[in-house]
């Protein structure tokens, strides 16, 4: 960890802190709590400027060492330029928003939490050296943007805009991620610096073109380049400070950052030059032409932002031509475009930030952003007007503001590109400056329109809801700072050029410098009567003329109505609608809500997967030689079992079905006896008995078995699937019982159960000792099931409405007054008095004998429970409550606690959980006795099983 890491994570910390600050400082504007973060960061990055000019600052912290991912932060010139924009503009925006959101009392902390989340993520993007870390931060900026656009989430437009921006930028982000992985495949590293150092190896690689396109998809979607720009105008639903910060100054520039950062990797590819330059140029013209037509101030600024981002993108593309050159001199010549791009990026953040804040002020003070309503504000808001003019003139490219300088440099770059001796640019390359100039005319037009239509003209107070007035000083501070900066850059361009642009150039064009060398950039206002000057003069003249003509026509362009035409927005909407519709159709095709259908899928899959595996693989052998002989008893039991099972589906009577199922269970018990499994036989016997009681208890609540009036095809399908499953299982059973190639692990248990655990009943030893953990969790599952049953029986859903409760009463009317378990059978009652004690004693015997003879906690517990159930049947459920006032849920809990504590007790002896110990002791009267801790564990099981069983039976039995 280093200060750099701290710098990136401070915003996240504050963001989380703000969310929990609900109670704290109720009356204070949350903005004041957020403000220290950007101030600290801004000072921190300012302080590093001199150091970064010499050499980048790199700090690494290990994140996922097993994957070789380290959070390496690399503060070089390019990162610093962005970091200063993020923290500097962030500082002004937070300050501005404190006055802008003065009426949003309750949700302030949410706003600032998101804003700081974005700030941290954006810093992470521009500082990360590891591509995966960069990707992670990149997506967090998308999420923060989503949250901020949807800040007024109850508005439908906000939801729409937020979703749109999210879908498009995340789509691009995923593409970019794929591109990063391709880079990793080629180079074996995610570190940008290391990839750049191996750039010679990957230049001819077949994957470089896909990687390039995928990375550019990320950059173009994030930076709203044509045709992915459509999300940005809709993102204007966000509060204006957000638009100023994310959607003009910082987040949308992440794509530009990525292009600049990856230039050293891809610039040797001609495709990079073409896609970036042409993509940028198209976006520049398209955006500027759309901006002229807008009537909403923020929409105008949104399209102007798209256009300006295109301009910078285009410049970065033109600058990458340096990578196609062999000689350093010509490379440096073309690299000027990159200088222009970075410089304009800086200028744009400044003037566009100011303009957005002005628009926010106009909106805040007049209540409208509609250009058709606005006008004449120059007298009422003179300070705002001054700021707006500086911003607009800088945007239009008029001297003496910063925008003028970068526009001149832009013209120089597009003129220079004709000299690239490739693709016969010298002949048709003239198109590029011509298109650039046309776009600049539109840029001039919308800048002037913005100014004139808002502030010029006559003031008509009828048109405003509120009475407009000059903004408060708090709102004006931030845009004033930015406007002054725009002027200062124009007058003293050498300052940003030396301190910010030169180090940033080093990052974008590292190959052009020998170590220790610096770029030397001179930006001047006046170069003499060059082509650029004439171009500027012409664009002012033509632009002014067009604005005047436009005004005469009442600011309406023919064909500005965009109805019934193909638009990208329409394409987006239709695609989204279509995919939602299609996926819903597809899903409901097989997810139709019928559990039977789902079960059929499962069974079909089971049959197909297993039968093909058995047929395809040579694992399946039929070998009857090893089989045990069969005798008459066994055959009789099996026949009885089969007949009972077959009779269950045929029975139309509830009692008969239940009893037949019980019969199957008892036959299985018999088989367990024959197969020498005494523990299983005992368990199954008791469980079967308790189950039948339970079925009969629930019985009165279940409806009669109706003769199922279903189609024969329904039954046939079921029968077919059932037969298929049965056959597959038969073959599996045959397969597993033939040929035992794999040695059973049971030999260990057989050999060690007496030596290690001191028990002669291997099954019990496995349960309580070798696999004690399983048993403990099993008891937990039982406990959960019993509590679930208790809750289902006891808790009624009361808010179902009258209709159901009426139905309920009707349905149950027949049972009211009957007490189904008040037995009047004298023989049963008499016999039960004695038998119950015998059963209980026997169960206790089974429990204690369990370690060495058949029995144990499970069996003992079940049998004790069975005795109490017999009592309940003979004397009524309420009698149990009188005689044994025990809370069986508590009993379950105590049992579990004993089991867990026994397990934890082994910690005292520094042994693993559930290690048991035993010993033989000489006790008075009893003689030599074996005592094992496993018995205590088994006691826990015993108590829980009693608790669980009785909770279940008594909850159901007491049910009316």
């Amino acid at each position, binding site marked *: 960890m280093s200060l750099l890491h701290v710098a990136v994570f401070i915003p996240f910390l504050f963001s989380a802190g703000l969310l929990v600050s609900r109670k704290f400082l109720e009356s204070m504007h949350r903005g004041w709590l957020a403000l220290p973060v950007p101030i600290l960061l801004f000072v921190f990055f300012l302080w590093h400027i001199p150091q970064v000019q010499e050499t980048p600052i790199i700090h690494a912290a290990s994140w996922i060492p097993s994957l070789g991912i380290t959070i390496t932060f690399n503060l070089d010139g390019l990162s610093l330029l962005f970091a200063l924009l993020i923290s500097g503009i962030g500082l002004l925006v937070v300050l501005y928003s404190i006055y802008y959101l003065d009426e949003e009392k309750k949700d302030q902390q949410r706003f600032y939490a998101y804003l700081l989340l974005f700030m941290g993520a954006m810093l992470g993007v521009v500082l990360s050296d590891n591509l995966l870390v960069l990707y992670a931060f990149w997506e967090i900026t998308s999420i923060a943007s989503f949250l901020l656009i949807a800040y007024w989430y109850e508005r439908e437009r906000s939801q729409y805009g937020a979703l749109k921006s999210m879908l498009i930028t995340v789509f691009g982000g995923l593409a970019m991620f794929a591109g990063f992985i391709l880079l990793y495949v080629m180079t074996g590293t995610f570190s940008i610096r290391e990839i750049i150092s191996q750039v010679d190896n990957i230049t001819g690689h077949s994957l470089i073109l896909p990687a390039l396109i995928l990375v550019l998809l990320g950059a173009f979607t994030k930076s709203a380049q044509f045709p992915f720009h459509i999300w940005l105008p809709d993102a204007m639903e966000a509060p204006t400070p957000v638009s100023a910060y994310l959607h003009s100054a910082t987040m949308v520039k992440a794509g530009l950052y990525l292009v600049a950062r990856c230039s050293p990797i891809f610039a040797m590819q001609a495709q990079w030059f073409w896609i970036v330059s042409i993509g940028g140029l198209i976006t520049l013209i398209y955006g500027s032409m759309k901006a002229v037509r807008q009537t909403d101030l923020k929409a105008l600024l949104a399209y102007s932002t798209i256009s300006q981002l295109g301009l910078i993108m285009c410049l970065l593309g033109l600058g990458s031509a340096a990578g196609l050159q062999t000689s350093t001199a010509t490379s440096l010549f073309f690299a000027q475009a990159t200088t222009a791009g970075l410089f304009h990026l800086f200028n744009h953040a400044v003037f566009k930030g100011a303009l957005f804040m002005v628009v926010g002020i106009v909106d805040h003070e007049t209540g409208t952003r509609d250009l058709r309503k606005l006008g004449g504000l120059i007298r009422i808001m003179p300070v705002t007007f001054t700021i707006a003019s500086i911003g607009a003139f800088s945007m239009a490219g008029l001297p003496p503001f910063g925008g003028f300088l970068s526009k001149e440099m832009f013209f120089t770059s597009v003129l220079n590109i004709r000299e690239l001796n490739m693709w016969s640019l010298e002949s048709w390359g003239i198109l590029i400056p011509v298109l650039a100039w046309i776009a600049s005319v539109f840029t001039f037009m919308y800048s002037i329109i913005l100014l004139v239509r808002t502030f010029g003209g006559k003031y008509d107070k009828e048109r405003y809801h509120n009475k407009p007035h000059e903004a408060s000083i708090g709102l004006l501070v931030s845009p004033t700072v930015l406007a002054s900066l725009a002027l200062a850059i124009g007058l003293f361009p050498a300052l940003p050029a030396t301190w910010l642009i030169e180090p940033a150039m080093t990052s974008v064009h590292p190959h052009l410098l020998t170590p220790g060398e610096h770029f030397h950039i001179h930006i001047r206002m006046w170069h003499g009567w060059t082509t650029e000057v004439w171009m500027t003069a012409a664009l002012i003249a033509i632009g002014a003329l067009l604005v005047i003509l436009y005004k005469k026509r009442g600011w309406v362009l023919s064909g500005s109505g965009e109805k019934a035409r193909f638009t990208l927005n329409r394409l987006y909407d239709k695609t989204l609608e279509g995919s939602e519709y299609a996926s819903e159709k597809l899903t409901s095709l097989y997810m139709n809500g019928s559990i039977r259908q789902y079960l059929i899928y499962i069974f079909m899959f089971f049959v197909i997967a297993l039968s093909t595996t058995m047929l395809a693989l040579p694992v399946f052998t039929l070998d009857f030689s090893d089989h045990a002989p069969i005798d008459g008893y066994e055959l009789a039991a*099996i026949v009885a079992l089969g007949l009972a099972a077959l009779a269950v589906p045929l029975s139309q009577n509830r009692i008969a079905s239940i009893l037949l199922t019980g019969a*199957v269970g008892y036959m299985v018990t018999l088989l367990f006896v024959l197969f020498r499994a005494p*523990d299983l036989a005992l368990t199954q016997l008791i469980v079967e008995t308790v189950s039948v009681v339970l079925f009969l208890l629930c019985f009165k609540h279940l409806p009669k078995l109706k003769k199922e009036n279903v189609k024969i095809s329904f039954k046939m399908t079921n029968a077919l699937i059932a037969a298929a499953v049965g056959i597959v299982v*038969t073959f599996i059973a045959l397969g597993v*019982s033939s040929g035992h190639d794999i040695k059973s692990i049971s030999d260990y248990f057989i050999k060690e159960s007496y030596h290690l655990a001191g028990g002669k009943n291997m099954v019990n030893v496995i349960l309580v000792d070798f696999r004690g953990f399983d048993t403990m969790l099993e008891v937990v599952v039982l406990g959960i099931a019993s509590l679930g049953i208790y809750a289902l029986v006891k808790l009624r859903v009361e808010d179902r409405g009258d209709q159901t409760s009426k139905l309920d009463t009707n349905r149950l009317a027949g049972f009211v007054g009957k007490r189904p378990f008040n037995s009047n059978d004298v023989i049963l009652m008499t016999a039960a008095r004695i038998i119950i004690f015998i059963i209980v004693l026997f169960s206790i015997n089974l429990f204690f004998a369990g370690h060495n003879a058949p029995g144990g906690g499970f069996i003992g517990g079940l049998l004790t429970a069975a005795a109490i159930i017999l009592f309940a049947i003979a004397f009524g459920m309420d009698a149990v409550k009188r005689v044994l006032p025990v809370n069986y849920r508590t009993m379950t809990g105590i049992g579990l606690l004993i089991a867990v504590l026994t397990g934890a007790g082994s910690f005292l002896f520094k042994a693993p959980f559930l290690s048991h110990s035993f010993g033989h002791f000489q006790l008075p009267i009893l003689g030599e006795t074996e005592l094992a801790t496993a018995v205590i564990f088994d006691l826990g099981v015993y108590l829980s099983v009693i608790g669980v069983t009785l909770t279940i039976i008594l909850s159901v039995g007491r049910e009316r």
Partner: protein
Amino acid sequence: MELVMAITTGLLFAVAVYLILSRSVLRIILGTSLLTHGVHLLIMNMAGLKRGSAPLISEDTMSYTDPLPQALILTSIVINFGVTAFFLVLAYRANQTLGTDDLEKLRGGDENE
């Protein structure tokens, strides 16, 4: 013996699946019970039947049946009891509240999409 047991297991599975695919909740629950029996017999079959004496250590014998499947089945029997009980109570509560035990009618409403 193993062959007969394999067929019995298959039969139990087939009947169980048939019951599970029917509409009535009670039949489905009985089906799951039968399915459990089938699984138990399958596990028993895996280890081989009637090899050696019951898994209780004594001095008379050196060969025992495999104790591990028995431990597994014992766990399963008890769990099955809990699950069946839960299922039963769920079924009759659903029947009381919704007035049907036909699973084809219990498809969930629009509100839980």
